C-alpha cells in the first residue's frame, strides 16, 4: 500500500520535481554509549546530503534528512524508526548499534523501506531481510582477513583475546574465535572487559600472564586507547593486533606513543591510502572541526550509494532500490562519492578492498592492500 503511494507520488513527481523533496531520515545514536559512532555517521551523512543538494539533489529532488536520537537504547530506536516510517521515507539511515538495528530492521522490512545501517554484527545480514544494507564489513568478512594475517603474517601459534563485553565486542570475539579454531591457532586467554572501562591494569596482567604469540584487541576506540596506554605502562612486547577500532587515527591521538607498533586489519579507514578518502577526510575536518572515524565514511558513502542506485533506476521506488542495490558494484568513476569501489551482495553485505596497517610514529601506515574477496 505504502509503496504504491510512493510510486504514485514518484510518478507525479516527474512533473513537479523542482518543489519535491526526498525524505531520508537519520535515526542514530546521538547520546548514550554510541554517541561517538552515531555522531560520526550522522555528520558523514549530512556532509554527503549537503553536497548532493548543492548540486541539485537526487533526480532533481532535494534530500531532507530529519535526525532523531536513539539514546543508544533499542526501545527508543524502535520508536524513532517508527516515527521515520510514519513520515513515508525513501530510505532510513542508521542506526549503528547492532541491538537497535535488530529491533527496528523488522519494522523497516514490514514497511518495505531500505535501511542503510552502520552496524557490523554478523547476524544482521543473515536474517533474510532484503531491505537491510551495510556500508562496512560485517564481522564475518573482516575476521577471516585478520585470522589469515595472524597465521601467515605473524606465524603465531597462540593468541590472547581482549574484547569489550557488548554486542559489538562479543560478536567480534565469537567470530574471531571460530576463525582461530579453523586455522588451528590456540586462544590461550579470553579477557572480557566492560564498555566504558577505564582501568585495564588487571586485564593487561592477565594477558601478559598468558604469554601468547599475539594479542587481539577488539574494543571500542577509547577503551583501545586506554588499553594501549596501560599495555605500554606494563611493558607488553607481544604484537597487538586489531581492527579499525585499534588502529584508527582517533585511537592514536588518544593513546599517544603507546599506540606505536599496534597493527592489524583495517576494513574501512579514514586513513586509507586512497586519495579520495584522504581528501574526504580533509573536507570533513574542515566542516565539522574533528577527525572522522570509519563511521563517518559509512554515513557518507551510504547516502551516495542511494543516490547512485536511484539515478540508475531513474525514479524513486523503494522496492526497486533494494533490489538494485543487491549485487550492485559502484566504482568511484561512476560515483566519486563512493570513495572506493564497493559491491553489495545478495544479503546486503559489502565487499571492498581492505588494508593491513601498522602504527608507526603516531601515524597509521598501510602495509598491504588486500583485494576484494569476490575477485
Amino acid at each position, binding site marked *: 500500500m505504502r509503496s504504491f503511494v510512493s510510486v504514485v507520488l514518484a510518478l507525479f513527481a516527474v512533473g513537479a520535481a523542482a518543489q519535491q523533496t526526498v525524505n531520508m531520515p537519520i535515526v542514530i545514536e546521538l547520546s548514550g554509549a554510541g554517541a561517538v559512532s552515531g555522531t560520526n555517521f550522522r555528520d558523514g551523512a549530512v556532509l554527503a546530503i549537503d553536497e548532493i543538494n548543492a548540486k541539485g539533489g537526487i533526480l532533481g529532488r532535494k534530500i531532507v534528512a530529519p535526525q532523531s*536520537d536513539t539514546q543508544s537504547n533499542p526501545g527508543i530506536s524502535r520508536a524513532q524508526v*517508527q516515527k521515520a516510517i510514519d513520515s513515508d521515507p525513501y530510505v532510513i539511515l542508521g542506526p549503528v548499534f547492532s541491538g537497535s538495528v535488530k529491533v527496528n530492521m*523488522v519494522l523497516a522490512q514490514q514497511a518495505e523501506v531500505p535501511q542503510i545501517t552502520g552496524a557490523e554484527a554478523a*547476524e544482521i545480514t543473515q536474517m533474510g531481510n532484503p531491505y537491510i544494507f551495510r556500508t562496512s564489513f560485517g564481522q564475518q568478512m573482516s575476521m577471516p582477513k585478520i585470522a589469515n594475517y595472524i597465521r601467515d603474517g605473524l606465524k603465531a601459534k597462540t593468541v590472547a583475546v581482549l574484547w569489550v563485553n557488548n554486542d559489538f565486542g562479543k560478536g567480534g570475539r565469537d567470530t574471531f574465535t571460530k576463525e582461530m579454531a579453523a586455522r588451528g591457532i590456540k586462544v590461550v586467554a579470553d579477557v572480557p572487559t566492560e564498555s566504558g572501562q577505564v582501568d585495564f591494569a588487571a586485564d593487561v596482567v592477565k594477558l601478559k600472564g598468558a604469554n601468547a604469540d599475539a594479542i587481539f584487541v577488539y574494543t571500542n576506540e577509547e577503551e583501545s586507547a586506554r588499553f594501549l596506554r596501560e599495555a605500554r605502562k606494563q611493558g607488553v612486547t607481544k604484537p597487538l593486533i586489531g581492527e579499525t577500532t585499534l588502529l584508527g587515527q582517533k585511537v592514536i591521538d588518544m593513546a599517544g606513543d603507546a599506540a606505536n607498533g599496534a597493527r592489524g586489519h583495517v576494513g574501512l579507514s579514514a586513513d586509507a591510502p586512497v586519495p579520495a578518502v584522504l581528501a574526504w577526510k580533509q573536507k570533513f575536518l574542515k566542516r565539522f572541526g574533528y577527525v572522522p572515524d570509519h563511521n563517518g565514511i559509512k554515513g557518507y558513502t551510504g547516502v551516495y550509494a542511494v543516490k547512485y542506485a536511484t539515478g540508475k533506476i531513474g525514479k524513486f521506488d523503494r522496492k526497486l532500490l533494494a533490489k538494485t542495490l543487491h549485487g550492485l558494484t559502484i566504482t568511484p568513476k561512476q560515483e566519486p562519492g563512493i570513495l572506493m569501489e564497493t559491491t553489495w551482495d545478495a544479503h546486503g553485505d559489502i565487499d571492498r578492498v581492505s588494508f593491513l596497517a601498522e602504527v608507526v610514529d603516531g601515524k597509521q601506515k598501510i602495509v598491504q592492500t588486500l583485494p576484494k574477496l569476490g575477485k
Partner: protein
Amino acid sequence: MMKKLAILVAAVALIAAPFGLKPYGIYLLSLWAVMTIAAIGLNLTLGYAGQISLAQGSFVGIGAYIAALLTTQGWPLGLAFAAAIVLCFAIGWLLGYPALRVAHHYLAFVTLSFATLVFLVLRNEEWLTKGVYGISGIPRPTLAGWSTKAPLDFYFFCLLILALVAAAAGWMIRSPWGRAFTALRENPIRASSLGVDTRRYTLMAFAIGSALGGIAGVLYAPLVQFIEPTAFALGLSLNLLLMVIVGGAGRFFGPFLGAAVSVLLPEWLRFSEGLYLMLYAVFVMLLLAFCPSGLLGLGARARKSWKPSSKSAN
C-alpha cells in the same frame, strides 16, 4: 465527585487518544502504559511504604526476559504473566530483607547493587539469555481470537493491563494495607507498637512493587519485540524513580503523570534537536526546585491556596 469525573475523562481520552495517531505515537502511548505499570509498583514500595528501591528496572528486565524466553518457545503470554508475577514477587520479597536492617541511602545502594547484578547475569549467562545479542522476534499475543499484532490492538492490550493493575493497586491502597504502608513510611516504630507487623509489610511492599515491575516487563518484551540487557541496566531504574518522584510519590496518580513526563516529554522536546535532553533535564530540575512533591503536589498546593481556611501544616 470531581475526582471520579476527572478519572472518567482521562479514561475516555486514553481510549480515544490513539485514533488519529500514527504508529509512532501509538508506540509511545503503549510505552507510557507499560512504564506507568512499573512506576505504580515502585510508587507502592517507595511512595507508600517509604522503601527506596533502585532495582525496579531489574524487575522489568526479569519480566521481559521471562516473556521473551517463554513466548519465543511458543508458550502463551498468560503463562509469562503468571511466571513473572511469582518470580518477581519472590525475588522482591528476598530483596526486602536488607530493608529490614538498613534504610535510606544504604538501602538505595543495596538495591542498586542488585540492579547491577541482574544486569550482569542477563548479560553473562548466555545459555539462558543470549547475552549481549539479545532476544529478537518476540511475538505479540492473541487473546481469544483477538490478535494484538497491530500497534493499535497492542496499545489497547497494554491499556487493559494498566487498568487492571491500577484497579488492583487502588483497591490495596484503600484497604487497611494502604494505611499500614503509610504508617510504615511515616513511623515504623510507632506502627509496630500498634500491632503492625512491620517486617511482613515491608517485605510485602517490596514483593508487590517488584511483581508489578515484572508485569510491566512482560508487556515490554512484546511491545519492543527485542530485548537486550542494557535496556534494563541502572538507567531504567533511575528513570522509574524519576517518574515516581516527578509525578508525586505516595499519590495514586503520580506514576501516570511521571511516566508521561519521562516517556513523552523528551519526544515533544525533540524539536530542539541536540538540546532536547538538556531541556528535559532542566525541566525536571526546575520542577523539583519549585515543587519537590511532584506534579500532583503542585495541584494539591494550588487547591490549598484556593482554600485558605484549611490549616497550613508542616
